[in-house]
């Protein structure tokens, strides 16, 4: 570590306590010290709940005081000035001016009712008093800077909903850069976007940093991102820094057991080689899902959004078909269409039976055999039902199990199978972490003993090490029950670990389709190559094959 003169940001013995009511307190951050020098990038890495975001928010004093408080001894000095307990007017001069922040969720961090010009203009107005033509020129300059240069004038009047996730994140970065801050705090800026966008954003941040000589505090749970972007790294766990140091040193020679665990915990392995030729479980021919675009007083259909356009696939028992593509490529819609949760055209054969023509009542018995696990483990479990009730739901609908005791035994089996303590069935979803919730969602599907499972990005909302565990679990369950998986993901590392066959989708079309080995070893299409580069090397490819 190069502890030169005074670092730009110096955090000493920072602790944060949250009051839980009734005099109870929870220490989210416990005696953390780190510093960031001018022009350097420090990464705070750790799993959800490790206190990394809370540490970052306390730098700008943005925590919900007085519910949160800093015990005596906590100190945050920025350019020689103490920020803990600093008066509000002083903090306002620092926030968004000398220290800027980019948040994780591009969907909610922009005001949906303001145009891009107004959003960026606000920081200029507050800190520089800039208005009118001068502000406008500066905003256009900023948009150019973050790569939204093409039609920048037109973009000024756009509302957030008219931009893609990656573009919104670029707008956020433009807002952060508006006053040329000395320190940029990026709180998981790439977690909510596709791998291809992630690669582009990382390169943008790196470029901007070198150009302006900013310091950057980068918060993430993804070690690959750390390796790509940071100079130094602090590994956090349970509110404490367990290891800190130079990125190269830490990765080459991790000292702490937890760091070693994190580095080892990436989804890896390959699906086993199999030579048998099992029967097809699910076959689909020329699936089309077109959403009508209606206009005019009489709501006439003037066109279609072709979410899925002529996709054919066949899935064999005990095998995994990986469906990859960027967001908006129709992956999820395809999965929902196969389960008849979305209206579609074409032929869907489940075990030789065309299910597209079946009525809801006729389809119900078949639902038992085809199940789905969703991406967001926080949204896919009803908050008002206990875990036991959630898993029992399918049993009740399909009248499986003679009485409550027998169903209870099945629930216990299912929970054991996903490695959760069966006693958890009396508790409610909000008491569980993301990974545990995803296991509950898997148990809900498994208890019905399905033969076909759609996995809709089951790992993308999870921490890296939890992803690895879930992938391991999925592989095990597949071997045990001979499940056929349709595995939907934008993350090719996870797909590589599970899929026997890969289908690459772009704008509803199949771009490439073949055995996983062939596609990963020698991708034929530019689009596939760009996806690979983004996923495995975090490199953005400039062929125009992927969106921005």
């Amino acid at each position, binding site marked *: 570590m190069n502890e030169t003169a005074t670092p730009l940001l110096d955090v000493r013995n920072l602790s944060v306590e949250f009051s839980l009511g009734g005099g109870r307190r929870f220490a989210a951050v416990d005696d953390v010290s780190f510093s960031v020098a001018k022009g350097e990038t420090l990464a705070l890495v750790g799993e959800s709940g490790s206190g990394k975001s809370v540490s970052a928010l306390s730098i700008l004093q943005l925590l919900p005081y007085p519910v949160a408080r800093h015990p005596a001894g906590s100190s945050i000095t920025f350019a020689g000035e103490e920020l803990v307990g600093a008066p509000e007017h002083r903090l306002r001069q620092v926030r968004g001016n000398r220290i800027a922040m980019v948040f994780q969720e591009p969907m909610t961090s922009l005001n949906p009712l303001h145009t891009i010009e107004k959003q960026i203009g606000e920081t200029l107005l507050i800190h520089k008093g800039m208005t009118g033509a001068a502000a406008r020129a500066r905003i256009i300059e900023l948009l150019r800077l973050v790569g939204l240069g093409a039609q920048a004038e037109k973009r000024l009047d756009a509302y957030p909903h008219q931009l893609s996730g990656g573009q919104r994140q670029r707008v956020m970065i433009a807002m952060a850069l508006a006053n040329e801050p000395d320190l940029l705090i990026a709180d998981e800026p790439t977690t909510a976007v596709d791998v291809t966008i992630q690669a582009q954003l990382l390169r943008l941040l790196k470029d901007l940093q070198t150009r302006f000589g900013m310091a950057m505090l980068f918060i993430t749970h993804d070690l690959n991102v750390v390796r790509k972007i940071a100079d130094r790294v602090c590994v956090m766990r349970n509110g404490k820094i367990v290891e800190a140091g130079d990125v190269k040193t830490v990765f080459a020679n991790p000292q702490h057991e937890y760091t070693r665990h994190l580095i080892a915990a990436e989804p890896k392995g390959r699906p086993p080689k199999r030579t048998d030729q099992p029967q097809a479980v699910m076959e689909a021919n020329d699936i089309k899902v077109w959403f009508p675009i209606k206009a005019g007083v009489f709501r006439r259909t003037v066109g279609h959004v072709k979410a899925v356009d002529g996709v054919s696939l066949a899935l064999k028992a005990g095998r995994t078909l990986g469906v990859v593509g960027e967001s908006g490529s129709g992956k999820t819609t395809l999965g929902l269409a196969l389960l008849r949760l979305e209206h579609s055209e074409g032929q869907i054969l489940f075990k030789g039976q065309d299910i597209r023509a079946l009525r809801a009542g006729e389809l119900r018995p078949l639902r038992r055999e085809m199940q*789905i696990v969703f991406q967001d483990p926080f949204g896919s479990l*009803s908050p008002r039902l206990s875990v036991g009730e959630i898993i029992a739901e*399918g049993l009740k609908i399909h009248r499986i199990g003679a009485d409550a005791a027998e169903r209870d035994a099945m629930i216990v089996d299912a929970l054991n199978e996903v490695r959760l303590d069966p006693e958890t069935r*009396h508790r*409610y979803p909000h*008491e569980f972490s993301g990974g545990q919730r995803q296991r509950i969602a898997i148990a809900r599907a498994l208890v019905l003993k399905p033969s076909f499972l759609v996995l809709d990005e089951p790992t993308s909302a999870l921490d890296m090490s939890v992803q690895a565990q879930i992938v391991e679990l999925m592989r095990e369950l597949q071997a045990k029950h001979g499940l056929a998986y349709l595995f939907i993901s934008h993350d090719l590392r996870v797909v590589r670990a599970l899929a026997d066959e890969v289908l690459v989708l772009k704008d509803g079309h199949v771009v490439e389709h073949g055995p996983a080995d062939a596609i990963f070893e020698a991708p034929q299409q530019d689009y596939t190559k760009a996806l690979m580069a983004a996923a495995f090397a975090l490199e953005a490819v400039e062929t125009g094959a992927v969106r921005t």
Partner: protein
Amino acid sequence: MSAAQAAQTAEAAPRARLSPLNRRRLAIFKSHRRGLWSLWIFVVLFVLTLFAELIANDKPILVRYDGAFYVPVLVSYPETAFGGEFETEAVYTDPELVRLIEEKGWMIWPPIPFGNRTVDGTLDAFPAPPSARHWLGTDDQGRDVVARVIYGYRISVLFGLVLTVLSSIVGIVAGAVQGYFGGWIDLGLQRFIEIWGGLPQLYLLIILAAVVEPNFWWLLGLLLLFAWMGLVDVVRAEFLRGRNFDYVRAARALGATDARIMFAHILPNAMVATLTFLPFILNGSILSLTSLDFLGFGLPPGSPSLGDLLAQGKNNLQAPWLAITAFVVLAMLLSLVVFIDEAFRDAFDPRKTFR
């Protein structure tokens, strides 16, 4: 199930019944002192007035006569049972009968020895001002105001509660169907509600009240025709939001029927918004009965009600105790409900933190 298992379930059951979420809500509700007190006052008053016959009645609670016990509050006895001359029901305020009973026993009177329709014949002029005999005076027909208020409070609250429950059921079902299915069903029902809601309901009620002889159940039915619309918008919005949640999709993938998804999955999550609204509907229900009574189109003439008392106050400005009593009781009742609602809303607010 073995004994050990049974014990285990019994132990787990109370925990399962009151989830941590609900425990948190209870704690917030309890920390809201004004709301908690209001709830207690409301409940105590309501329970007391439920037994109004024992508090204000022109019949004794218990009579001891000639070695036997009589319960006039519950059973109707002829005057002959107490040595009188007539076969008709005994009039216990008749000095002659009082003398007869007290010769051979005693009577226990309720704290207020007047029923809601008892005319006090000992007075010269009505309405009589407050006195030791009539704590809040009498109305213009010589009936004790305290007794009328107690019975009137009971009927107002009962009517309000029944109307609230019924209109909530109708409103929730209508809102749920609209929000869940959307499309043409939603469009059609929304337009119907707009037209239905545009009807001048008070006039309609007055016209209908002229056709039928209004009683408690008729009025309930008539008001229900219009009261159910209050909740529809809230529930509809919650269902529109809820139907796209992943757990609803998951339930559909499990093969759950629409009705099951609506009432087992979405409704419990839409309940917060609904519950928050209920006290307003209760207040509205109480007020609509009161206004009908005030206009004279409500409960049959002579029924004790707050609206009737208000109307008497308006007609007898020289007897201010009538209007003042009606005003204070109504204002107190409505305020109690609003205060309870305040605590309720805080308890169900997920963003509320402990202070």
